[in-house]
């Protein structure tokens, strides 16, 4: 271990032992997966998305493999905030590291009620405001497409939530840098770049789209270069921390995201193929930084921009 570098970093109001964060929507809620023994190398975890009321999620096929990636149309299935607070938070508190509640941006009233519920319970370290899911009919992603919508969403959430507030942006926004800046101006502590990429698949045998909603969100190694570009763009536009998210599947990807300006990375789809990826990324980063005489993660952040 002597050849390894300390990977701790302070990001958006959270102290992380490692810059590797488990993205929302991929990690089981079952208690066994939130025990510290399962989470080597993990700096923090994002919960599955939760809204005020239960959602059944989408019908029909929900996942479809693509070259170096996967499309999903899960549709924010969750059991609602009351059940989340009762059943999921006690599990999350056992992780021994910070977690972020991935909160679905719904109507103003619903988000205010959800945040009030989270405020009323102890030990919720942070909120990741989800304004970017491409898989639902009620226009969650609409909030994130334009800077005005992003600003309004963050303003509402900020007025109810005094703790660390991260905002998960959508790569579908043609004004991504401006949306990130709007989040910063309204008091966000960090922005996450970003959610899945809008795609689709055709079932040529059945002569119809694979997914009932036709479109779906693409993730996995296939989107990494796209996500890296958004991290570069957004990092140049804001002064709050940027979290890179999209296709990270090895320590080199993580290093590239950090060099482009990210302060930490979220890993998602790559966990489908390797449950121990966070440890491998942390070990790889640490050994490489020692070799390169880079003292800490902050020395790597934005290194590629200088």
């Amino acid at each position, binding site marked *: 271990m002597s050849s390894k570098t300390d990977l701790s970093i302070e990001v958006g109001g959270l102290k992380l032992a490692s810059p590797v964060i488990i993205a929302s929507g991929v990690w089981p809620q079952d208690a066994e997966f939130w025990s510290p023994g399962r989470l080597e190398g993990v700096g923090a975890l994002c919960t599955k998305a939760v809204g005020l009321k239960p959602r059944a999620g989408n*019908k029909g096929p929900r*996942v479809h493999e693509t070259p170096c990636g996967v499309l999903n149309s899960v549709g924010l299935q969750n059991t609602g905030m009351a059940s989340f607070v009762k059943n999921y938070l006690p599990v999350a508190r056992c992780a021994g590291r910070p977690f972020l509640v991935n909160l679905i941006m719904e109507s103003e009233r619903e988000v205010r009620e959800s945040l009030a519920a989270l405020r009323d319970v102890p030990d919720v370290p942070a909120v990741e405001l989800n304004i970017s899911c491409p898989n639902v009919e009620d226009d969650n992603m609409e909030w994130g497409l334009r800077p005005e919508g992003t600003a309004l969403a963050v303003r509402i959430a900020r007025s109810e939530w005094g703790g660390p507030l991260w905002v998960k942006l959508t790569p579908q926004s043609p004004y991504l840098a401006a949306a990130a800046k709007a989040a910063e101006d309204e008091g966000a502590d960090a922005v996450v770049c970003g959610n899945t990429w809008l795609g689709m698949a055709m079932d040529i045998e059945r002569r119809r789209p694979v997914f009932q909603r036709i479109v779906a969100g693409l993730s996995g190694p296939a989107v990494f270069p796209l996500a890296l570009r958004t991290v570069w763009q957004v990092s140049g536009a804001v002064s709050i921390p940027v979290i890179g998210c999209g296709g990270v599947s090895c320590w080199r990807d993580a290093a590239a995201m950090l060099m482009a300006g990210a302060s930490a990375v979220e890993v998602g789809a790559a966990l489908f*193929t390797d449950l121990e990826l966070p440890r491998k990324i942390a070990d790889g980063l640490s050994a490489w930084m020692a070799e390169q005489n880079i003292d800490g993660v902050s020395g790597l952040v934005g290194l590629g921009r200088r």
Partner: protein
Amino acid sequence: MSGEAARDHEARVAGARVLGDGTALLAVECGAVADSATPGQFVMVRAGSCGDPFLGRPLAVAEASGGIFKLAFRVVGRGTELLAAKRQGDTLTVRGPLGRGFFDRAGDTPARVFLAGGGVGAVPLVFAARRLGFARIAGATAGISGAGWEGFADWLKEAMPKVDLHSDDGSVGKAGTALDGLPRSLPPGAEIWACGPVGMLRALAARFPNDGDRIRVSLESRMACGVGGCLGCAVPTASGNRRACTDGPVFAAGEVLWDELED
């Protein structure tokens, strides 16, 4: 069951055999899976460590003993093609054992069990038959499409000698489907354990509408993680969406909302 055991393993192929047109058999050295897998459980298998094909393939365990487990599967695309091309000594990535199997349901194992498999759905029933023992098997029936499946049929007969084989085209065993080998009514104390395509299991549930809690079905599903994280394999049930990978793949036929389940 699922959580504790759900780990990723590098494993070595101990033996590989092409069973005939489009089906293959792999024996895999992996004590962590072989020593704890129970009938009805599955593994997510990847042929290599590169990103394409990206996801593991969920395959039912056919046998497990002495540190080796076996898989018998149909080659349906590039992922299973790469698996079928593996030879002794090659490596694989294996996640498992996963899911709740036939024996993981509350209550005692029934005194008598009828086994019914459709296509490669017969694979986990081979494992179940071994654990049940001769005396508790009331009958075993399987259905395949026919021509091209001879190798699979031979393997099945070897693994489950008493199996009553049916084929759609009549070329192997009797003409008909697996369901033709089941009794008209289910005797008291007996259960049916079945695995196969959704269409077959839906027909099975419809044929025994009052015995839903005495029929255990193992569902095939598209999956991404296999450990209950992604919710990609939702099964509509009377108590809401359940996960095929961790709440199943074995469910009581009576709890599944068959009309809402995708074929």
